C-alpha cells in the first residue's frame, strides 16, 4: 500500500522566508532567555543530589542496638518473594530467637524491585541511598553478610554471638520442658 503525499501548499517563497525568519527569531528569544537562566547541571562526582528517603539503593540488614543482633531471623520470606533468586542465607539456630550466619545477595541480577523488603515481617532488610554499585569485577556484585550488615564484620560477629547466646539460653531452658514432655 503506497500512501501518496498530497501536493504541498501553494509555495510562496517570500512569505515562507519571512515567516521562517520571524519564527526563527521568535525561537531564538527562548534560547536567549535560557542562556541567562541558572544552569541545571549537577557536577556529579563533586556535587551530589540528596537521595529521597524512599530511594532504593544498596541493601542493608538492620542492626538492633537494643538486642545487640541483626533483626533477621533467617525465615527466607524475602528469598521467596524475590523474582530473580538474588537472596540466599544460612540460618543460625531455630525458633523465635533464630538468626543468620550468612546472608548473600547477588546484586548482579537484582531488579531493585523492593519486593523482598515488603515481604519481610521483621523489618530486617531495607534499601539505603547508596547507588554507586558498578564494578569491573563480577564477584563485586556479590554482597556477603558483612557487606550488608549495618556495622560490618563487628556487627556480624556480635550478631552470631548474641544468637548463639540466646540459643544456649533457650537450650538451657528447654531440657526441663523437653524432659517434662518426654
Amino acid at each position, binding site marked *: 500500500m503506497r500512501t501518496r503525499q498530497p501536493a504541498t501548499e501553494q509555495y510562496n517563497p517570500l512569505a515562507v522566508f519571512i515567516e521562517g525568519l520571524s*519564527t526563527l527569531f521568535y525561537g531564538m*528569544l527562548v534560547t536567549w532567555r535560557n542562556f541567562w537562566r541558572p544552569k541545571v547541571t549537577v557536577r556529579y562526582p563533586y556535587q551530589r543530589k540528596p537521595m529521597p528517603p524512599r530511594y532504593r539503593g544498596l541493601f542493608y540488614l538492620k542492626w538492633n542496638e537494643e538486642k545487640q543482633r541483626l533483626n533477621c531471623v533467617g525465615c527466607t520470606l524475602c528469598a521467596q518473594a524475590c523474582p530473580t533468586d538474588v537472596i540466599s542465607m544460612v540460618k543460625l539456630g531455630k525458633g523465635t530467637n533464630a538468626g543468620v550466619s550468612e546472608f548473600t545477595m547477588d546484586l548482579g541480577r537484582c531488579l531493585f524491585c523492593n*519486593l523482598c523488603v515488603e515481604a519481610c515481617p521483621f523489618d530486617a532488610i531495607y534499601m539505603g541511598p547508596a547507588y554507586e554499585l558498578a564494578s569491573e569485577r563480577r564477584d563485586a556484585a556479590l554482597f556477603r553478610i558483612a557487606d550488608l550488615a549495618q556495622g560490618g564484620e563487628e556487627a556480624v560477629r556480635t550478631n552470631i554471638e548474641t544468637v548463639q547466646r540466646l540459643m544456649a539460653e533457650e537450650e538451657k531452658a528447654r531440657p526441663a520442658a523437653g524432659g517434662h514432655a518426654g
Partner: protein
Amino acid sequence: MSMPVSPEKQSTLSTVDILSQGMVINVGPQHPSTHGVLRLILTLDGEQILHCEPVIGYLHRGLEKMMERRPYRHNVPFTDRLDYLAALSNNLGICQCIERLGGVEVPERAQYIRVLLMELQRIASHLVFLGTFGTDLGATTMFLYAFRERELVLDLLEECTGARLTYNWIRVGGVPDDLPEGFGEKVLGFVKTFRQRLEEYDQLLTRNRIFRSRTQGIGILPKELALAYGTSGPVIRASGMAYDVRKAAPYEVYDRVEFDVPVHEQGDVWARYLVRMEEMRQSIRIIEQVLRDIPDGPVQTKLPKVFKPPAGIAYSRIESPRGELSFMMVSDGSPNPLRVHIRAPSFVNLSVLPSLLEGTKVADLVAILGSIDVVLGEIDR
C-alpha cells in the same frame, strides 16, 4: 511493496536508462535515530526510500515465557523492562490484569494515586518523545530542554517510588505505600513551571517554520490504514480516530476526571506531534483534578501470601503513553499463570512503518520513526 521500477515500465518512459539500482542501506541496529536496537533495511534511490524492511528481535528476552514460570506477583518488576520510558504504565497493566483474574478490589485512594502516577509518567514519556524527536530533526536544544523538565518529573517519581526508571510501584491490590509528605504541593509546583515550559516549547519548536515544513504532510497515515493495522494511542488519534482507552473503557478513576482526547485529522507527523503536546496539557489537567479530589483511606488490599486466582482468563487494557497496552493472563488455579500475552502498542504501531516510509526521503525516515515513538523494549519483549 514497490521495488525499483520494472524494465518494461522504464522503457516506455525514457529510452535512456539512467535510473540507478536501489542502494541497500542498513539503518541500525546501531544507529543514532532508531531509538534502540531497531534495524531497518532500506532500499534507496538517491535520497528516496523505495522499500523498507524492519528487523526486530535484537532485544528479545522471552519475557512472556519467563512470566509463566513465576508466581503472579513476581512478574510485576519484569514489566518495568518492557516500555522502560513508562514503566509505571506497564506495572499498572499487569496488576490490573491480575486483579481482574483474582477479583481483587482496589481501595479508592490507591486508584487516585495510580491515576496521578500514570499521568506524571505520561508527561515524562512524552517529554522523551519531544526531546528525541527534536534531536532527530536537528533541534538538539529541544532535547536538553525536554530532558531538563523530565528530570523534574523523575525527581517527583523518585521521591514517591524510590526509583527513577524501573519503578515497580504498583502492586496487585493497590500501591505499596501512601504518597510522601507534601507530595501534592511539589507536584503542583512542577505543574506550574511545566505550563510555562510548554509555552516555551511551542515558541521554540511548534511555531518554527522549519519544524513545520519538516513535519507537515510527511508520513501520512490514513484513518483506514491506521485502523486496519490496529494502531492505537497518539498514532491513531492523529489520524482522526478519537480512540482512547481512558474514555472508551475507563479504568481506575478516569471516569471521574475531566479531560479531552486530542484528535487531529491530518494523520501526518505534525499531527502526531501535536496530539502528544496536547496530551501533556491534558495530563496536567488530570493531575490537578486528582490532587483536588483524592480521598483519604487505605492504599492496599491485603492479599494472601500465596496468591492463587481461580481458573479463568483475564484481559485488561490501559492507555499507556504509546497506545493501548494490554495484558492477557490465563490461570489454571495454580500460583503461576498458565499463559501470559502482552499486546505492546509500539509493536503494533511500528508495523505501519514500511507503508509510511515508501516514497519518502531518508531525512523523513527519522521524522516518521520518531513520530511513531517506539520503544524497543516493548517491541521485542
